[in-house]
């Protein structure tokens, strides 16, 4: 499949360095390069402090890679699935950074980065990636394997299910506690290099806001 210019190639494009941010589980920030691989990566599994750590981690990931915002080609956002409050912090940060640096946003499904990491580590064949959705539910995505380039082929999901009802129960399952921004960024590099599409610019909450429309006022007198 050929996708025409999924993001605008810039005159200053020099090897396509990317900043990648994922807060679908803990917080992970990385700077990656197609040739150089993961230049820097910082990850914390703390799921309660996304807003606190995000700024310092972006600053430090850039500093460790000795990269200024101007040298980046884009900003990768892990779009989830993930619990919404934390997920939003990373996407908001990625969008604001992209705006500030004048670079395009590159949305990627977070589970795809987990799959890439498993396949890179030697897994072959089908795979079920599962992450915590809180409230006794799980997010899942199913993969059939990788294509000739090594890019994971998602065959189902991402979806949301109660633990007993997660589909594809027969597949080898991997429960991820964190999502690597380094893998997320590398996947974006590969997709771009091979003219594959990115994900939609839409957060994957997979859950409606917890609210029911008003049914009118309740009586206060018996």
């Amino acid at each position, binding site marked *: 499949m050929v996708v025409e210019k999924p993001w605008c190639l810039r005159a200053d494009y020099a090897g396509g360095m990317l900043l990648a941010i994922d807060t679908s589980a803990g917080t992970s920030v990385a700077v990656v390069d197609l040739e150089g691989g993961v230049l820097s990566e910082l990850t914390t599994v703390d799921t309660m402090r996304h807003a*606190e750590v995000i700024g310092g981690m972006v600053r430090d990931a850039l500093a460790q890679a000795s990269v200024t915002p101007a040298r980046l080609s884009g900003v990768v956002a892990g779009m989830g699935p993930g619990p919404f409050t934390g997920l939003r912090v990373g996407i908001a940060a990625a*969008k604001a950074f992209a705006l500030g640096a004048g670079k395009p946003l590159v949305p990627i499904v977070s589970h795809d980065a987990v799959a890439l990491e498993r396949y890179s580590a030697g897994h072959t064949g089908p795979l079920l990636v599962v992450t915590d959705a809180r409230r006794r539910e799980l997010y899942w995505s199913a993969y059939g394997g990788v294509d000739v380039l090594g890019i994971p082929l998602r065959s189902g999901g991402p979806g949301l299910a109660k633990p007993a009802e997660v589909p594809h129960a027969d597949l080898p399952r991997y429960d991820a506690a964190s999502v690597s921004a380094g893998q997320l960024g590398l996947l974006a590099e590969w997709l771009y290099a091979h003219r594959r599409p990115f994900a939609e610019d839409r957060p994957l909450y997979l859950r409606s806001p917890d609210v029911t429309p008003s049914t009118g006022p309740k009586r206060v007198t018996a």
Partner: protein
Amino acid sequence: MTADAASASAPVPPPVLRRATMADLDAIMSLETSTFVTDAWSPAMMRSELRSEHSYYLVAERAGSGEPGVVGYAGLRAVNGSTDADIQTIAVAPAVRRAGLGRSLMLALIDEAERRDAREVFLEVRADNPGAQRLYASLGFEQLAVRPHYYQPDDVDALVMRLTLPMQDALRSAHTNSRAEPLVLGIETSCDETGIGIVRGTRLLANVIASSMDEHARYGGVVPEVAARAHLEALEPTITEAVARAGIRLEELDAIAVTCGPGLAGALMVGVGAAKALAVALDKPLYGVNHLVGHVGADLLDADGGQGREIELPTIALLVSGGHTSLLHVRSLTDDVELLGETIDDAAGEAFDKVARVLGLPYPGGPQIDRVAATGDPNAIRFPRGLTLPKDMAKHRYDFSFSGLKTAVARWVEKREDAGEPVPVADVAASFREAVVDVLLRKAIAACVDREVPRLLLGGGVVANARVRQLAKERTDAAGIALRIPALSLCTDNGAMIAALAAQRIAAGHAPSGLDFGADSTLPVTDIQV
């Protein structure tokens, strides 16, 4: 010469610069000997400098309250008819460093050199003082040469630097504006409005608001998750629009400001996450500020983009919205705000929403109640005034309670309905509104009287209510209290007030917030900046 820029910052009122006189000699010498411990000038040398017609010496004096005195000085030597001028010396007291005073002194001397028709300004700086070198380089000075072993007895080299006049306009305006009138972008996401504002000092350049109010209407109130999702969607287009309206580029900003509380946690986090990333991407300082104090700061701005004005202080501030009902005593916008009282249950705006539902009126309730109350009798029904009985006033003199009032209205309406009688909606709405507004202003006026503060400032979305404004006018007039109500577009939640507050913090010499703060849904008003 030295201008150490490496000590911690301290909040100070901006010092005032004036020409030095012989009477300043002792104060200057005291600073000189403490700053240049090993190579200070003698009093005789300093006296002859101050006396010389070729010299131009300035002192910086601490303004306002606090310990008065000279906190900095600087001197220029520009011989009449010569095209060269020399910065002779500059020193800033440790307590006021890092607040831009050295820069202000340098700019004033450069101005004088230009007035005396100098073409080049020279200075020497210690090789072991990179902070000072950075300051001079930022003003356009270039390194010319090194004078080995110039500073004795420390045996430190001097770098000779030169500035060619006239100074570049861009450099000058960047330096003169960035401190007193910083260009700040403010991000506000504490409730259901994504507000992006841009100010230069107290001048409003853009105030763009994307509201998710319509999405909350079918739920009868703000749903935090719905609000937070809407913020994420609105963020980027709202920033883009504000920047376009202000006619600036993001790179020109001096700082980013963001509401870090109080408010809905999930909603606040969208703004905080975005603000931090924007600050890193642009390499700008970030100021995390208090939403409620921001509402007070709104009064600095002119909604039509005029110059704005100072807020007369001290003032009592009554902030009333769907999320807050707070009474503040503001002695200094940047440094001294006291919470006198707040609601112990529902916010006033929430009570309007709930009573509107009881009366079968749509959300948001405020404008609806206002509309139907117009034809009603505010004295038709005597609804309770929360926390105004003597026993309550002892413990909750400046606190509010609207939960009991809401229940009283519902009970009254149900009794009518149960009896099969028609509900006089206009009278109920007018009487309810009167009860709310009466309590709000009774307590606000009491605070003004008790604290002997003859000023009342209103803020928050409920100020849109016509009766609030009307009764506020009547009662403040009767009590001889000056009333301030910012334009409505600045009373509701907005990013401009956040930017304006941060601009004041910057002008007062406060350091940025760093990148490690979080969203604090219950941030107290005493924390003006985190």
